[in-house]
């Protein structure tokens, strides 16, 4: 097991190299990388200094070499968008995205699995049809549409929920936001501020629902299908012949087997969500990775874009690895070698 994990982590190196080559080439093709460091007040000699300092006069291959050296030394360059080094920017924006993602993925797991199981048990009954329609809608609805509609209804029309941000402005202005783990829900509990906890939770509802809606839909569909498949197998009949009640047959014997294919989907969605939900974060002014990367691209802040892409690649590989390890845990027939 440990060997397997180490092997998979070593595989990260070629993956990252590939990603870095592609993204680096793209940033060099699409414009002048010096643009990010120059403004209109600079004299030609100052501009020349920028070119010298960042090796923009050297051949592209050398530039890649310098950049790679920086990456290994954890000097990922300056993020103009965030006005801090890229590594700091990632550390700064990551917790916001992590918090949102954790909430949405838990929502997706619990709601999706429950709906999937419930509708497989009530196959072809009204509940099943309703679930299937909702999950079809969930897969097809564009995120930005759902986000805007939710905002319109719950913020503008009913005034029930805040329009965006992680907490109310008063906390930002008073600079009383705690920064212990970066996850505001946890931090507010750690400092014992229940008012802040409620405020943060309220701010989380709409973005989390928006983000999880599509995932709920996919998880529901996969879970329903794999439950239907499992429920027709022989060992379910054995379980019935043992005299078990339907509840333990479904929630113990069938669910554990049906979870195996669903785990893959959940893992992939988790990776995707962690990579930053650009649309959701932009609409709800969520200060996370997605919004930061979107702004960086618009401003041609190529250091940020490169850093962001590398980080997403790492997250994806690590989560895939985690899914494979989970597989071995869920299905004893799988051996990791």
């Amino acid at each position, binding site marked *: 097991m440990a060997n397997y994990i180490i092997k998979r982590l070593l595989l990260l190196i070629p993956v990252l190299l590939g990603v870095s080559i592609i993204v680096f080439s793209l940033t060099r093709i699409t414009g002048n990388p010096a643009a990010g460091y120059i403004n209109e007040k600079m004299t030609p000699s100052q501009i020349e200094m920028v070119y010298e300092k960042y090796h923009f006069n050297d051949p592209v291959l050398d530039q890649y070499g310098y950049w790679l050296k920086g990456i290994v030394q954890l000097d990922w360059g300056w993020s103009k968008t965030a006005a801090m080094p890229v590594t700091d920017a990632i550390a700064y924006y990551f917790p916001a995205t992590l918090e949102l993602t954790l909430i949405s993925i838990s929502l997706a797991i619990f709601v999706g699995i429950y709906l999937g199981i419930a509708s497989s048990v009530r196959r072809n009954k009204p509940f099943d049809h309703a679930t299937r329609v909702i999950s079809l809608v969930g897969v097809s609805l564009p995120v930005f549409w759902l986000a805007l509609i939710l905002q319109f209804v719950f913020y503008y029309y009913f005034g029930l929920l805040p329009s965006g941000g992680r907490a109310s402005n008063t906390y930002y202005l008073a600079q009383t936001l705690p920064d212990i783990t970066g996850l505001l829900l946890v931090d507010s509990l750690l400092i014992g501020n229940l008012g802040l906890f409620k405020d943060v939770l309220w701010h989380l509802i709409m973005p989390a629902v928006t983000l999880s809606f599509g995932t709920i839909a996919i998880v529901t569909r996969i879970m329903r299908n794999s439950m239907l498949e499992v429920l027709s*197998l*022989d*060992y379910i*009949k*054995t*379980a*019935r*012949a*043992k*005299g*078990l*009640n*339907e509840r333990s047959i479904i929630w113990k*014997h069938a669910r*554990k*087997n049906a979870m195996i294919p669903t785990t893959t989907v959940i893992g992939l969605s988790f990776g995707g969500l962690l990579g930053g939900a650009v649309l959701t974060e932009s609409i709800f002014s969520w200060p996370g990775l997605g919004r930061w990367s979107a702004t960086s691209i618009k401003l041609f802040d190529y250091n940020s874009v490169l850093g962001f892409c590398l980080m997403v690649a790492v997250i994806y590989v690590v989560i895939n690895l985690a899914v494979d390890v989970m597989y071995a845990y*869920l*299905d*004893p*027939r799988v051996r990791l070698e």
Partner: protein
Amino acid sequence: MNDEFIIEIEDLYINFYTKGGVVKAIDGVNLSIIKGETFGLVGESGCGKSVTANSIMGLIPTPPGKIEKGVIRFTTPKEIMDRVRSGKRTFKGSEAKDPKGDKIDIMKLNKKAIRLIRGRAISMIFQEPMSALNPVFTAGDQISEIILLHEKKELAEAVLKKLEERRNGKGVTLGYNFLKRTYTKMAADPDNGTLALMAKIPLLKSYRRPMVREANEKALRMLRLVRIPDPQNVMKSFPHELSGGMQQRVMIAIALSCRPQLLIADEPTTALDVTIQAQILKLIQELQEEMGTSVLMITHNLGIVAEVCDRVGVMYAGCLVESANTKTIFKEPLHPYTQGLMNSIPKVDLDITRLETIEGNVPNLIKPPSGCRFHTRCPYAMEHCKKEKPQLIEIEPGHSVACHLYGGVDNG
């Protein structure tokens, strides 16, 4: 006379409502199994052997299946009878609310009541042990599960006894009073709602631990009983880590762990190697003698029938066409279909190059032949056979046949 039967099936009709039409899978089956015997049910695939067996367990999937008519009278042990009687809303209809004596009509039980019988009084083993065992639970877990389900009372008593022993041995037991109270309650009423609720609450549910340990010990004893070498290891093994023969032994251990009155073996050896087949059959026979269980052996293998069965029922297209002692049926089969079956056994000692077969194919059960369902393939078919369905009649004591050739029906 009736008292010696463990189960009597009378006039059973089962239909399956499919898109293609109504499949009349079981068409008036009557059969009974004597206590302690092995009853063989033979016939081609699709003739309704398994459906009959599933109906005894109440495992016919509805829909599409529907039991149209029939009585399955099962001689229930007193202890289960008491639990069935004490349960609220145990019976489906208002009739038969008060079952006579120790017989119970399985058809009239509701879901909750039939679960008291499944696995406890009647259990089943299947054709493919690999797919019949849940791949994500260990063999030990799957055996102890059924023990935990049906033998709570016995387990609770065993735990109480151990608690006392340890107390007298001056050992310190954590939470002695709590455990004692809980298990006394459980021994008195295994279906107690409070205890079931407690099993779901974290921390509180740890009260089950001594009981689970007890069940695991019993599971280990069961594995020894089915002659599994190295049972400690097999307890912790997952089904895919065991060979086919071992898997089937685990299935038998599951099926017999609550000492059922009736064991239904649905082609238990079909998926196994020939050498393993003999071992498994011998094992079933030995355990049957040890526990006094009756066995319903479903098979299409006449060799197995000759070897292990006391009596045989022959099924064709959803009907029981003949039933008799094993010896009688091999010596003088009466029904033309049975005769055909006997003839189609390959004989090594005779110098025949062609294998004997029965002409024609198994009929489509959506549109079964009128009258006797075998008349389309029967060499002795008469006009009368197309019109009227022959009843199962007793030709001589213990030998019944459903055919117009016998029994003095005015067939000209």
